[in-house]
């Protein structure tokens, strides 16, 4: 069954259409592999084999009838932040350990409407707050690259990256509030796309920071990511911030000519300390692009190094408001106390993990009357400066490229301070603040044989060209990310 596991979505769809394989065979191959390696990798919180086989049977019937849907029979993992009707949705929190939604998120509904097969709900940092997936109530998922080293698959969408890189899903979903799709994709050798804010609906996705949260795809190739994004994108009247925009690719991305592109490098990132490997691979890909005819220019985003601090004010502030709903009254955990207030306090003390509590206290502090202007509103002004600077930069270039991270995956038992963990988001948060699309694509292997990624960043709703340039970089890098190779079996 190995050959099935190494198929990309593009290839699998061809074989499904031609009748060479069936959706049931493909799904069963993934379920077998989950059975074998799922517990070790801890990438799923909930596996849904019955649902998966029923989905697959329905896909096979549509193929037989000659009217397949765009992603018919494609087995995916859904980040356990998207509400799925009748299937436990936990946000990796004890607070929602037993929560079974009575409704379906727009994104997961769109996958149902596209014929995709649901393998299960993938692990993540609790409420998507983290960069290593270690804050999950269910324990951290593991990076399948050099699995004996017990490395992080990144976070917060680390369950999806662990599953896709190890061949426990052909592709999957993530959400990106400050880098939660791109960073984990980068350090697992995958493609992770954070679309333009508003392109994919947030409805039914457990809220972390509403002005930053962006659902998006994680896959092994750029074309696969484009196909998944085509299923996820589109206006949704249930999300008031959903844009009147769409994204659609049939089969594969059209090739964009590099000769016609002007690509920007962010001057301010030059002063950031990154590993020699990241520098070497990034420079190599830039010279590939140059040799192929792209024009390389330098642009300036003056406050981009302040984006991290602005983000760690805005995101916790929004989170502290969003998480107020978990009061133990209508759903979720309840721990009885001596009176109502005591019940709230005991419930929330028991239901939330330490990082969630830290961010909620910080969020409340920066929103308090004495600090609202100095912290929250100042961060919102810096956010404007950054977004405006990106607009100006895109007057001088079509797309921007930058690293996805400073280095390769860290061991799960690394003991960093909160600020050191926050610094991992350095290259990714500004794009969330500005709401612009950014895709992390593999740029090669470091000397330690672990993968690294770089980002392509575009203007709002230029998601297509972001992916088109990423596709060139993917080809230049030529990283072998076949699951059987990554996992060694």
């Amino acid at each position: 069954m190995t050959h099935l596991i190494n198929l990309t979505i593009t290839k699998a769809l061809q074989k499904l259409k031609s009748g060479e394989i069936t959706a049931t065979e493909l799904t069963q191959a993934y379920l077998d592999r989950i059975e074998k390696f799922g517990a070790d990798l801890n990438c799923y919180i909930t596996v849904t084999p019955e649902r998966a086989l029923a989905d697959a049977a329905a896909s096979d019937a549509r193929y037989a009838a000659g009217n397949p849907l765009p992603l018919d029979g494609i087995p995916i993992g859904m980040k356990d932040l998207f509400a799925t009707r009748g299937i436990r949705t936990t946000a990796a929190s004890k607070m929602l350990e037993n929560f079974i939604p009575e409704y379906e998120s727009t994104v997961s509904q769109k996958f149902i409407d596209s014929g995709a097969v649901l393998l299960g709900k993938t692990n993540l940092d609790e409420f998507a707050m983290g960069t290593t997936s270690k804050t999950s109530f269910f324990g951290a998922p593991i990076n399948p690259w050099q699995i004996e080293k017990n490395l992080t698959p990144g976070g917060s969408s680390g369950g999806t990256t662990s599953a896709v890189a190890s061949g426990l899903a052909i592709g999957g979903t993530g959400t990106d509030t400050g880098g939660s799709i791109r960073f984990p994709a980068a350090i697992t050798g995958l493609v992770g796309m954070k679309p333009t804010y508003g392109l994919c609906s947030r409805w039914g996705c457990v809220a972390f920071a509403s002005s930053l949260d962006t659902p998006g795809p994680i896959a092994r190739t750029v074309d696969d990511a484009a196909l998944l994004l085509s299923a996820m994108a589109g206006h949704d009247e249930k999300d008031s911030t959903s844009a009147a925009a769409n994204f659609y690719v049939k089969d594969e991305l059209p090739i964009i000519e590099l000769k016609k592109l002007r690509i920007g490098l962010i001057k301010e990132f030059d002063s950031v300390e990154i590993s020699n490997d990241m520098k070497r691979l990034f420079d190599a890909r830039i010279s590939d692009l140059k040799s192929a005819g792209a024009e390389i220019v330098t642009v300036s985003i003056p406050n981009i190094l302040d984006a991290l601090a602005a983000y760690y004010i805005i995101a916790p502030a929004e989170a502290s408001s969003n998480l107020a709903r978990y009061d133990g009254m209508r759903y979720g955990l309840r721990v009885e106390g001596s009176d109502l207030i005591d019940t709230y306090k005991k419930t929330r003390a028991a239901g939330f993990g330490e990082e969630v509590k830290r961010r909620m206290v910080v969020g409340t502090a920066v929103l308090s009357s004495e600090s609202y202007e100095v912290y929250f509103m100042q961060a919102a002004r810096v956010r404007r400066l950054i977004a405006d600077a990106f607009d100006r930069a895109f007057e001088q270039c079509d797309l921007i490229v930058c690293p996805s991270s400073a280095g390769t995956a860290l061991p799960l038992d690394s003991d960093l301070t909160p600020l050191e963990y926050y610094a991992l988001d350095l290259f990714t948060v500004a794009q969330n603040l500005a709401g612009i699309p950014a895709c992390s694509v593999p740029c090669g292997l470091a000397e330690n044989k672990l993968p690294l990624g770089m980002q392509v960043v575009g203007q709002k709703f230029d998601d297509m060209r972001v992916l088109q340039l990423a596709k060139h970089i993917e080809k230049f890098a030529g990283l072998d990310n076949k699951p059987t190779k990554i996992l060694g079996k």
Partner: protein
Amino acid sequence: MAFSKQQLQKFAHLIRIEISDEKLSEMKIDSVIEWLDKLQKIDTTNVVPMLSPSAHSLPRRSDIVTEKNSRDSILKNAPDDAGKARGYFAVPKVMDE
């Protein structure tokens, strides 16, 4: 801006989280806040705060019922079974005798 232990406890109380002073100091919240102070140095005179990246104004829709008769479905996740059987959410007493 440094926050005292009492202020941090007040914030924890406002967001209804029971937490010991010891735990609170282990969370290194002060070091996070101190780091956030670096934003104060940036000149943002006349800069309009950006609260959301979405450019469009919030859409409106007609005030019509879209979901109905969903009481049992909503109650399914209620943490207190006693109320559920009667069709209610049962919550702790909020008023004195």
